[in-house]
């Protein structure tokens, strides 16, 4: 372990969290999922989030993704203050559409849309016209090396292909923040490596911040920092030079 990463790359973090707490339930049923968590993540960083089951990893990701409201603390995303004891912005969904890409363990593709339309959907929602949306979607699928499966329905994709289509979708609107909850759990080590390379490329190309929740030791060496959550308390675990 070395010094805090705050001053290493850029003075402007993409994700900045201070004393964020989140608990579920009250009284004897109370579970403190996050205890006064503070964290800064800068553009071009790919960081890992580790911890035993129930330690609060998904909770932290959901809070950063603005789908779960914390109980106290502050949060800034891409320079915009979004939480300070309460949400500061009425339309969190618009914020997600513009700034955040989610990658899930289960790929969550729309079963009734082909690969290319799953990706184009996000662009469609972001206001691209249909032709532009399909063009960019096709480029992204090529970039993720699943261009040959553009017209396939999700049910006919392999796990790895589906995951890459889902990543293409997460990246479609050029988010500055990418949140991935165990993105490689369903993949073999080779595929997992490819996915991590892609996230790295994205971080560099789009100056994005990437958080990867993982149990997967195979990918530890591809992460800039590894944070560890234990009972809702966040520690920096290791810092790799890359």
């Amino acid at each position, binding site marked *: 372990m070395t010094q805090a990463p705050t001053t290493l790359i850029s003075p402007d973090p993409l994700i900045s969290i201070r004393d964020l707490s989140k608990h579920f339930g009250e009284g004897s049923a109370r579970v403190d999922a996050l205890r006064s968590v503070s964290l800064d993540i800068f553009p071009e960083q790919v960081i890992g989030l580790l911890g035993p089951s129930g330690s609060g990893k998904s909770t932290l990701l959901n809070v950063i993704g603005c789908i779960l409201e914390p109980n106290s603390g502050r949060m800034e995303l891409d320079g915009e203050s979004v939480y300070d004891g309460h949400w500061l912005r009425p339309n969190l969904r618009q914020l*997600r559409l513009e700034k955040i890409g*989610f990658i899930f363990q289960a790929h969550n593709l729309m079963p009734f849309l082909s690969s290319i339309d799953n990706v184009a*959907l996000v662009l469609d929602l972001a206001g691209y016209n249909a032709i532009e949306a399909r063009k960019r979607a096709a480029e992204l699928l090529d970039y993720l090396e699943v261009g040959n499966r553009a017209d396939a329905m999700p049910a006919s994709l392999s796990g790895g292909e589906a995951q890459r289509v889902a990543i293409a979708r997460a990246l479609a609107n050029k988010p500055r923040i990418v949140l991935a909850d165990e993105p490689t759990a369903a993949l073999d080590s080779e595929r997992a490596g490819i996915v991590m390379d892609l996230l790295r490329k994205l971080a560099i190309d789009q100056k994005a911040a990437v958080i990867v929740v993982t149990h997967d030791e195979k990918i530890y060496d591809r992460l800039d920092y590894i944070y560890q959550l234990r009972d809702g308390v966040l520690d920096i675990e290791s810092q790799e030079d890359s």
Partner: protein
Amino acid sequence: MNLAYRDVRHSLGRFIVTCLGLSLLLGVVLAMIGIYRGLIADALELVETIDAQIWIVEDGKRGPFAESSRIPLDTKDAVARIPGVVATGAVTFQSVETQYGQSKRRMYVIGYQPGQLGGPKHIISGRGLTGRNFEAVVDHRTRLGVGNQIQLGRNTYSIVGVTKNAVSSGGEPAIYLSLDDAQKMQFDLSPPATRRERARGTAIASSGSTVSAVVARISPNASAEHIVQTIRRWKHFSAMTEEDQGKILLQSVVEKARKQIGMFTAILIMVSAVIIALIIHTMTMDKIREIATLKLIGAPDRVIVALIVQQALSMGLISFGLGGVLIFNIQNVFPKRLILQPTDGLGLAGVVVIICLLASVYGVFTALKVDPAKALAG
């Protein structure tokens, strides 16, 4: 990108089966409305066919359809002398059941004097009655044709013509006889009954002088109301206009059946509404994960609402269309008349649209409550 359409196309088989089921239900609703219209049309048909502006019946009676009525035949001559009356007729009505071949038939016997009011309006095959005995004209719904013979009472009649638009308020097809024949049939008892009546010494009323009603057509510039008032002053008769007669038929003769069918239709519409709501709710529940994902990737509510509402509306309207086509094609299979009016069809389509919108509210409510975090749960 239309998500509703894509989703339907993806699970087309299921969508079609759902629509087929719903189309049967909506077809039944449409049929009920048709039956309701048919009932009313049947009830008024005879009055419209006879096309007389004045009806004269027994004093204190609301006959001849709602109540039985007997008045002397010569009333007709008195009515004919009223200024403004241009044509008259004397008619008798009676329901009979008769054997034809292997089957029992119910018919509505109308007796009238050929050449005067009360007869069939359009002869569609054969000819009208001329006054000869033992001839009959039938409505086409008796499914009898020119040349057939039919036994009524003690006599056999040969059918010389076929007409249409002649059916009693109960839906029995009409058979027209000459007034003479009809009166004889009405008051002629079977031989054992005649013997019994004779033994009791009861005089059998001379039937020739009695009819059910006298009808009159008036000149266009005469006032029906005025003539009705005149006849009422004669004391021994009830008189009413064609409009009154129509009201009586709807109010007393078919009122209960009308309400019954009306209520049944209302219940069916409610049942359809509940079923549509359940289908839409199920369709929404099946897509909860996709809806959560849509929220997660930032789709606004409008997109989610459109997905549900568009599917609900297309399901409702396609089912309605299929149901309509179905009923339209089998309407003649129904034993009684079904009247499918475009306005009723449009009305029901409107109701279906409203039901679908209301039913979607439930689905939309569920969808909008979905937690986007649901999409993340492995």
